[in-house]
């Protein structure tokens, strides 16, 4: 029954963490722009996410007249469900995992890929042209960046010889973090993974589906109150989970120099999360076609080469 216990604990912790991840991002962004960020609601604005949540719960729920009601309402729920589902296979510590599936990596990638369906649903059902354009961009982008993401994740899978996240972490405990050794497929694969997951979670410089200077708010343009809140939350959960998976696949998960355990995993996840947001608040965004070119011309071939190299390491490297 431990998995049930862990799932409850993980989901609760995840939701709370998401709230303060939001706060962290706002503070970070503010500091980068020489501002203070939230300071008035609670100490250092720490209660800001709670206020936002309470506010969103009280807002009127508007269903646009021309919208497709069922799809419109389903989309945010599905987004949140898919985002949370990916957490299931993330190993936070020895045994601290909701479901230690044999196909952990596949599960994560599959649900990551599914995320695009509710996004497209939302874009289509809103009956708003900006939302539609946003949905179209999201689909194109997700389909393109899924490929390098899969290829990058294949490298640790091939090296460890298993698709289970726990096994991959064990492999790294015995050898070394994949991002460090074997350096040649390891480090580039890690960077490729980071880039592709930036694109997967629609973060700058790849945030064109919700590019609000062009498309107002992309797919969520017509959403109000808690439905928008779900989109908003799913986005952060997705980023958090991407960071956690990056940490588990490439940075050794819960292993660490002194006293391996949960704290290392959390620290690494946080590190990646902050990195993603520093990138977000630093860079400008690409244009649609440039994004596609980057994916197909550079990232996909690079991923193929890396997978091949990983195979070479396994066969001849004697790891």
């Amino acid at each position, binding site marked *: 029954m431990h998995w049930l216990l862990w799932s409850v604990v993980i989901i609760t912790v995840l939701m709370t963490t998401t709230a303060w991840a939001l706060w962290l991002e706002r503070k970070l962004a503010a500091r980068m722009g020489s501002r203070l960020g939230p300071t008035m609601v609670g100490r250092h604005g720490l209660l800001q996410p709670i206020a936002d949540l309470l506010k969103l719960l009280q807002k009127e729920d508007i269903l646009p007249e021309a919208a497709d009601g069922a799809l419109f309402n389903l989309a945010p729920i599905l987004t949140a469900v898919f985002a949370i589902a990916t957490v299931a296979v993330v190993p936070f510590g020895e045994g601290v995992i909701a479901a230690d599936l044999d196909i952990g990596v596949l599960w994560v990638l599959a649900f990551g890929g599914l995320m695009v369906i509710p996004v497209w649903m939302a874009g289509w059902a809103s009956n708003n042209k900006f939302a539609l354009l946003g949905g179209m961009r999201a689909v194109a982008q997700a389909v393109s960046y899924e490929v390098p993401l899969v290829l990058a994740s294949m490298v640790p899978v091939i090296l460890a010889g298993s698709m289970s996240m726990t096994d991959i972490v064990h492999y790294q405990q015995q050898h070394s973090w994949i991002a460090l050794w074997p350096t040649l497929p390891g480090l580039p694969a890690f960077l490729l993974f980071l880039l592709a997951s930036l694109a997967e979670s629609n973060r700058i410089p790849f945030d064109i589906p919700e590019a*609000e200077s062009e498309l107002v708010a992309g797919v969520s343009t017509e959403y109000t109150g808690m439905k928008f809140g779900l989109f908003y939350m799913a986005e952060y959960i997705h980023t958090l989970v991407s960071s956690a998976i990056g940490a588990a696949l490439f940075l050794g998960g819960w292993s660490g120099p002194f006293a391996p355990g949960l704290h290392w995993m959390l620290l690494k996840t946080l590190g990646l999360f902050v990195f993603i947001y520093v990138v977000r608040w*630093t860079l400008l965004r690409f244009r649609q076609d440039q994004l596609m070119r980057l994916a197909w011309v550079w990232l996909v071939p690079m991923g193929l080469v890396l997978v091949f190299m990983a195979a070479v390491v396994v066969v001849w490297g004697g790891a």
Partner: protein
Amino acid sequence: MSAPQPQHRIELAVHEGEGDLMLVNFGPQHPSTHGVFRIKLLLDGEIVVKAVPYPGFLHRGVEKLAERLTFTQLGPIVDKNDYIAPMTNEQAIFMAFEKLLGIEVPRRARWMRTLFAELQRVASHLLWLGTFALDLGGALGGGATVFLYCFRERELVLDLFEEVTGARFHYNTHTMGGNRHDLPAGYAQKVHATLDVIAARLVEYEHLTSTNRIFDVRTRGVGTISSELALGLGLTGPVLRASGVDHDLRRDAPYGAYDEVPVNVMTETSGDCLARALVRIREMTESIRLARALIDGMPEGPICGAKAIKTPTQFKAASGQVYVGIETPRGELGTYVIAGGNERGAAPYRLKIRPPSYHAMSVLPYVLPGHMVSDVVAILGSLDPIMGEVDR
């Protein structure tokens, strides 16, 4: 080379006949229209097929208001036209009135006006850089960071103006025959200190535009305006200079103190968004140099014409028509005044303001077709339109 033709109107028939095209209303309230402006875009996927701009959402009737106000009363009113560089509005209109009435402006006042104009250019271009980055990077991303940096620097310049006039903007400091407010003691040191800070940070911004890959790919070759089209459309200022036309009223038809403090004109040849960005960033450096020279060489003397003009009756004699154009941060801001035709000689009979942004926006139907939606905001931002000025 024949210039591209504007698409004047999107007919519904086109939309229906070619079922794959989508009509998108961009504005009037849209995060990147820099105010209220509407463009109807006919899209083929993400590519713009036709674009029809609709200005006028901020038309406030300044030219009508001018018919019942006296010449001196108009100063604070025209401030509100180009609200990013308000003082240049006052300068333009009072230069026209002074020419009409034959009023001499003392040398110190001319230098002060020129100093303010250059500081306004720095503040205005800073704001442009910030909002342009917002367009490229979004309000929830790197664009916002650049925007905040630019605003931080702009506040420093506004502090300088506040020190002289007491207002952050809408200064009402120019008047007939000179200025209202003299420079406070120790102003030169403050100007130098502020400009030191800005000049140091400008190096970073120049770096940002010349070495940032994403900035480069988003702006290079986007929204190219040929020099013929630019001249024919009456484009002026940085937009014209970025298209390879070496023309700047500060040098070519000097006014104020520009005949004593020569200006280096910045040009680029490619005419795309990148060229416009580079021209503006270099102009900031040049303006800082000019402002330093102006504050150092500031002559002593009265700041307003010997005979202060107080009563409207003094204008009774005014009649005739004059046109005066000056170089504001956005280009040639012209004032055409017709005086003397009406019973009350104190007010202009007809005042026409020739706004550079209005002409800049008229280029949109020529350049937008063929670009992607993301480029639309980049092109719009690179023209640096101010809606208060476009619509007046």
